[in-house]
Structure formats: C-alpha cells, structure tokens
C-alpha cells in the first residue's frame, strides 16, 4: 500500500477531478446544446446553462431520424448480440474447461487468436458470406466439379443461396462469437472448485444439469458484467450495420444519427442533432448505471 498523506490525497483528488471533467465535458455539451434553440446553439461561446427548448428539439430529432423504429431495431440488435455472446461464450468455455477431448488446447488457442482479428479486418469475407450464407458450400461444389457434373449429367443447376442482408440474422450472427467473453468465462470456471462438480456428479447430475443448476447461477455476476459490456459494444457498432442494412427502413439508431448532422450548406441545427445524440446514447448509459454494482463485482471478484 502507498502511504496516505494529506498532500498526496489532495493531489489524487485533483487528478481525479480533472479526469472526471475531461470525461464529462462532452456529455455536458450534448445536454446543454440539446436544450437551446437554433440561434442560441450557434452563438460562440455556447451558453453554460441549459435552455428551455429540449422537448421541441427532441421531437424534431425523433421524427426526422425515425428514432421510434430505429431505437427499437437497435434494442433488438444489441440485446440479441449481447445475449448471444453470453450464451455462446458460457458454453464454449464450459466445453474447454470441463471436458477432455482431443484438440481442446488447439481450439482454445484458436478462439484466443481471434482476439487479434477484429471485425474490421475480416469484414469483406464476412460480408460476402452474409450476402449468401451458403456461398462456401457452393464454392466447394464448384471447385470439386460436382456442379458441372450435375449440370451435364442430370441437367440440374445447383445454386445454393441464403441471403442474410437486411435481416436480424445477418445483423446479429456474425457478431455473436466472442473471444473476450469466452476467456472471461474460462477464468471464472477455473475458480469453481472441482469438488463442486464432483459432488454434483455423485448426486446424479449430468453435464447439462450441472451447467444449468450450478455454473449458470454461480456465474450471475460474471454474466451481467459480460452482458453490459457487450450490450454497449453492440449498441455502438457502426460499420457492420451500415454495410448489412442496405434497406433504409431497416437501419439501427447509431447509423441513422448521420441523417441528423447538418450538411455544409443546410441549416446548422446542432440543437436537434444533439437531442438525437442524447436519445441514442441514453439506453446504454442507463444500463451501465443500473448494472454498475453487479458489473464491478463480476469483473474484480469471484463470488463464492
């Protein structure tokens, strides 16, 4: 431990306050700007106190960016991705930690290595698969000559197609796999005493039962932490939803935000843009505030 002296304390508080101010300043600007009218928001410097036009700005943003349906799409998208990540990573880690099968270590490392391959790196192949999820099989058939065979012998044209563009499936599935989550779960499982699994085994619980009755309840804090992180992460996804939702009716809130940004020669209504920003960033903010207690516990301590 570092010894605490008054001078040291003051210094710490000073640095923390500074950091907090830097972190909160953008939020303050969004909040203040969202409450002024067009004229006030364009004065330099920006007024320091909130104005009275919040509701009209908000309703303007709401209609212009179709926030009603877009926020709903975002909510479905982020919730599904986060829930899918929790489900998939808890099960993937379970199989790696609790089962002895050939290639176990290899699979673990393969998952681990994908940490280094973010979505942006593999976006082109992922997109081409989303455009036709059966493309890899089609390619296999083409290359092996089976397509040609079927065509010449039986007059049968094999065309496998399953497009995922503009669907929730296409939006969500490619984002569900997560090395971070699997790793987090793995570390948690390793702290669960072996005797617990053995006691459950002697009590007659099979592996699925043990997972449901023991590991899932025990990992609650872990699960909430992972869900929170992943919800915020998915909510903020921009590139992938932008690519996959070509239909303007189907977009999510974050990509829709750009329609609110004033164009170079248009009306500089930053007040409306900021009101929209506020609406879009609220859900993850609320979630983090609500889950904070669990969230911290899941990341730092292992509840026994």
């Amino acid at each position, binding site marked *: 431990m570092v010894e605490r002296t008054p001078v040291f304390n003051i210094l710490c508080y000073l640095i923390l306050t500074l950091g907090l101010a830097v972190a909160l300043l953008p939020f303050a600007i969004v909040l203040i700007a969202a409450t002024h009218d067009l004229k006030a928001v364009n004065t330099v410097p920006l007024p320091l106190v909130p104005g009275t036009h919040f509701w009209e700005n908000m309703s303007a943003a709401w209609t212009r960016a179709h926030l009603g349906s877009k926020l709903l799409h975002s909510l479905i998208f982020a919730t599904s991705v986060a829930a899918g990540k929790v489900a998939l990573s808890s099960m993937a880690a379970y199989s790696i930690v609790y089962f002895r099968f050939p290639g176990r270590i290899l699979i673990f490392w393969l998952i681990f290595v994908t940490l280094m391959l973010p979505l942006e790196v593999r976006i082109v192949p992922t997109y081409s698969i989303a455009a036709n999820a059966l493309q890899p099989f089609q390619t296999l058939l083409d290359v092996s000559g089976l397509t040609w065979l079927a065509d010449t012998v039986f007059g049968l044209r094999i065309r496998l197609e399953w497009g995922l563009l503009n669907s929730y499936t296409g939006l969500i599935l490619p984002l569900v796999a997560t090395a971070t989550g699997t790793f987090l779960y793995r570390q948690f499982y390793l702290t669960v*005493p072996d*005797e*617990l699994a*053995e*006691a*459950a*085994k*002697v*009590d*007659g*619980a099979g592996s699925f*039962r043990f997972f449901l*009755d*023991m590991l899932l*309840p*025990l990992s609650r804090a872990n699960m909430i932490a992972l869900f929170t992180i992943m919800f915020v992460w998915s909510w903020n996804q921009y590139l992938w939803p932008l690519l996959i939702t070509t239909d303007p009716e189907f977009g999510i809130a974050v990509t829709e935000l750009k329609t609110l940004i004033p164009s170079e020669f248009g009306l500089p209504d930053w007040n409306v843009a900021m009101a929209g920003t506020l609406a879009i960033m609220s859900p993850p903010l609320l979630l983090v505030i609500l889950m904070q207690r669990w969230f911290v516990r899941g990341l730092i301590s292992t509840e*026994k």
Partner: protein
Amino acid sequence: MASISLRNVKKTYGKNAVVHGLDLDIESGEFIVILGPSGCGKSTLLRMIVGLEEISEGEILIDGTVVNRLEPRQRACAMVFQNYALYPHMTVAENIGYALKVAGVSRSERDRRVREVARALAIEAFLDRKPSALSGGQRQRVAMGRAMIREPRVFLFDEPLSNLDAKLRIAMRAEIRRLHRKLGTTSVFVTHDQNEAMTLADRIVVMNGGKVEQVGTPAEIYHRPATRFVAGFLGSPAMNLMEGEIEPDGTFVQDATRRLRLSQQAGHAFPGGRAVLGVRAEAARLVAPGRPDALPAIVDFIEELGASRIVHVDFDGLSFAVATSDNPALIPGDRVGIEIDPRDIHLYDSATGERLEPVTARQTVHP
C-alpha cells in the same frame, strides 16, 4: 447396504503408479476406516469406488456386480467431501434435496424427506440459510444430510472431520458412529488421524505407498501390527523401534550394552538375523538402574500429559519413550533402567518389514 470387493485394483497416472494391486473385501454393513499417511492413495481409492476416478486395472464389485464402467449415479454411493463441497448458491434445504430433484422426486416428497434428514441431524433451524451463513460443524452436517437423503448403498467419507476443531471433531465422530448404528449402511471412511480410525472402525485398513499394510480390527492392529510400518504408524507416542541382530540363543543384540532376552518361555526361538525390535511406550517400565535384564539409560526429558506422563530416555544417542502413570521423581540426567516384558516385544524382519513370530516347538513352519 452392500458389500464391496476390490480385486487387484490399480491406479496409474501416466507412468506414475499410485495404487498397486489392491485386494479388499468389505462386508455389508461394515464400517471400514482407511488409514495412512498423506499421499498414500487413500482418496484415490475412495474416488475409484465412488466412480470419480477411472480404475486403471482390476475390478471393483458392489454387491457382486462389477461397477468399473458405471457412472457415479448408477453406483448408488454417496460421498462426503473434505471441504464439504456444498452448493454455495443453494439453501441448506436445496443442497440436501438436490439429488432427489435430479432424480425427479416430487416437491412434496422431497420436502418431507429433507425435513426428516434435517431432524436426524439437528439442522432443521438452518434449512433456509445459505452454506456461507453456517459454521464448520453445521456445514459438515449438511454435507452428511446430502449423502443420507439418497439412502445410498454405501457411504464414502474423505477426511470429513479434518477441518473441524478438536472438540467438534470428537462430537461429530460420535455422531457418525451413532448414525451408522442406526442406518447400518456400509461405510468407508478415509482419515490420517489414528484416533478417528481407532474409535470409528469395525476394521481398519492401513495403507502405505499405495499398498495395504494390514487389515484388522482396531485391537488387532494395535496389539499385533503386521508390519514395521504399521507398528511405527499407530500409537501415540510412536512405538519405540530399534534395529539389531537376533542371536541363535534368543537374545536381541543392538550393541555391547544393549541386549534383550526375547522370550522367557522355553522352546521359543526366533529365526536369527537382522531385525527391528519394537516396544510400545506403554509396555516398558522404568526401574532402578543396575537391575539385571534392565537396559541402562539416562532421562532426557519428560512430557506431562496429566493422567500419565511420557519419559523420554536416551541410551547412547538412541531415544526411547516410556509411558508411566505413577509419578517418578525424575529430572533430566537421572540414571534409570528400562524393563521390558518379552511378551510385549514385536519383531520385524529388517529387510522386508514383515512381522517375525516366535517359532515354538510345535510349529515347524514360519507363519
């Protein structure tokens, strides 16, 4: 209730053999204690019986059926773990009832049986608590309740009392004994505490280095230890052991000053050769120095135990403990003599550690 038979059971981890060809027959309703030093394979043996560890070679039979390939749940054994292994997120009632829940027993039936078991163990008041809100002794009871509720064929205990304080340990010991008398379920209890073994067991299995050294009742093990290891392992203080030579005339010679007549009976003879002589502290007596047939020694220090005391003496660098209940006015440095009744002498072959029996005139073959 069920009988258990082990036939040449072996366990190897890779190349490392942990249990070497073990044979054992446990009768139905018996309370067996497996006793041995740390790392001798006691837990491994227990875990092979319950089905948590694969059996590398040999067979385990429960009630005459080979169970090698059966899952733990099919073997109908219940186990109490050293660290209790209670499910931390479940209440006491849920912990005890979990096996029934898995087995698909209805909720009302489950509640009834949980209450019944809780009453037998006096833990009814805690049924709604989580394990983290219980004391060690209470957790121990819950762990036993979890095993009892299944009405298993066999109870297996892996050092269940080692995390309790001395007083509670004795109380739980009595409790386990009482439960066994009441339920009569075949039980295998692993411990490295000889007092626990002596008080609980119908028969004790002494293990060392993955082998069985001796199987017998507590009295047999104490009075006729079959090997040098058992002789040294059981008893407190440990049996006095010294190495020497048996002369053809029936005296044990350690060196010029230390000679002991091995038998007063005519016709008793021991095969000559190098041997280890063992005498329990309780079997030796302190006498005035210089008596014939008494070993001369010097008092080293005295351990006061209240009702009795243990006098540690020293002859030429060899230490020897004598337990005595009278109060000799001795101080370290005093000269004393030690008298040993030849009937209390145990002899072991120096090389093999096997017990040596006197060959009487009637016996021609060494047992």
